[in-house]
């Protein structure tokens, strides 16, 4: 994490959470970051009225809202035509960190899932990461959202379908393979003299 200053003063954030106390805490955290006033609503319906204008730079959304799931709202956001809305950074908050809940959030197209209770440190780092990460957006018939494969954990079970998944043609070997001793030699720690 770079220690450079971040300017939150002109960021327009929309918070969607049915828990008024959680909103109060979140607003205080954002105010501490220098974000003067975040707008908050408590339902999916209210959010859908405000979002199409494209006047928000950040969406912070609870996973369980009184009139629906946060994941459904995020899918709706990702289906909007306006790029400002469709590609806006979305942080999902959840108190329930069972794998199913987190996967549901991730697969709806959020940038990041943050566990409640929210700590200022975690929120600051995740917001900066969501803004500055060069992760591309992936659009398919069933998913629109940031690339979910931002950590390389090997190819998917099907072998990979992206161009970047294809194995390059290496050609015929031109030299004999290394022996095990030679490989071990590379792995062995060696003493080194440092000259000043």
């Amino acid at each position: 994490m770079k220690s450079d200053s971040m300017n939150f003063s002109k960021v327009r954030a929309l918070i969607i959470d049915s828990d008024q106390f959680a909103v109060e805490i979140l607003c205080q955290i954002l105010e501490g970051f220098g974000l003067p006033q975040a707008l908050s609503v408590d339902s999916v319906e209210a959010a859908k009225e405000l979002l199409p204008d494209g006047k928000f730079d950040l969406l912070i959304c609870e996973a369980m809202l009184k009139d629906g799931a946060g994941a459904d709202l995020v899918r709706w956001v990702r289906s909007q035509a306006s790029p400002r809305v469709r590609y806006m950074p979305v942080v999902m908050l959840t108190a329930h960190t069972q794998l199913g809940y987190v996967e549901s959030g991730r697969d709806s197209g959020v940038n990041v899932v943050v566990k409640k209770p929210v700590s200022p440190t975690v929120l600051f780092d995740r917001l900066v990461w969501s803004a500055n990460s060069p992760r591309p957006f992936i659009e398919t018939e069933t998913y629109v959202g940031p690339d979910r494969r931002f950590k390389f954990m090997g190819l998917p079970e099907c072998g990979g379908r992206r161009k970047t998944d294809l194995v390059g043609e290496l050609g015929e070997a031109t030299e004999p393979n290394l022996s095990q001793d030679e490989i071990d030699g590379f792995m062995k720690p060696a003493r080194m003299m440092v000259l000043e």
Partner: protein
Amino acid sequence: MKSNESARVIYYRNSLHYLLNSGGGITREKAISEASKNVEGLAGELLPVLNDEISKLEEALSSAPQTLSETFIREVFQRQGVIYNLAGTFGCSGLRQIAKSLGDLLADMIELGVRPIEPIQVHVRAARMFRPGMPPVHEEAQTLLINHLASVRQFLRSEAEGRPLL
């Protein structure tokens, strides 16, 4: 993703990126310190809410039937979320753990389609012991209690899945 589905890869810099990096602003350390101070300033106002929420849960459970409706479970879930969040924010560790256990239990109930009142009652009674202002509970007793609550959840799951523990 189906194998014949085509994917578009789009590189888009959002407005948050430009605003955060527009110069000026606040360092990470200062931002986190200011935010933490602001949150601490809310403790006086929000800690009493924990007592209110636990009392409201007790009141709702006192007149509820033995088998609860799904709407009721979802209402309890909302209150549990409030308790968990406030307890976690203001360092009420015991209450946070009980609220977490209640949340896991409610998630199981929704998933399994079973809605007995007793496991929720047990959790809410335990939460009462950890309300702000109550005498502190010894750490070992706290661990024992949390483990018992976990076994209540395990019992419910086993019963619902047709493999009773007893």
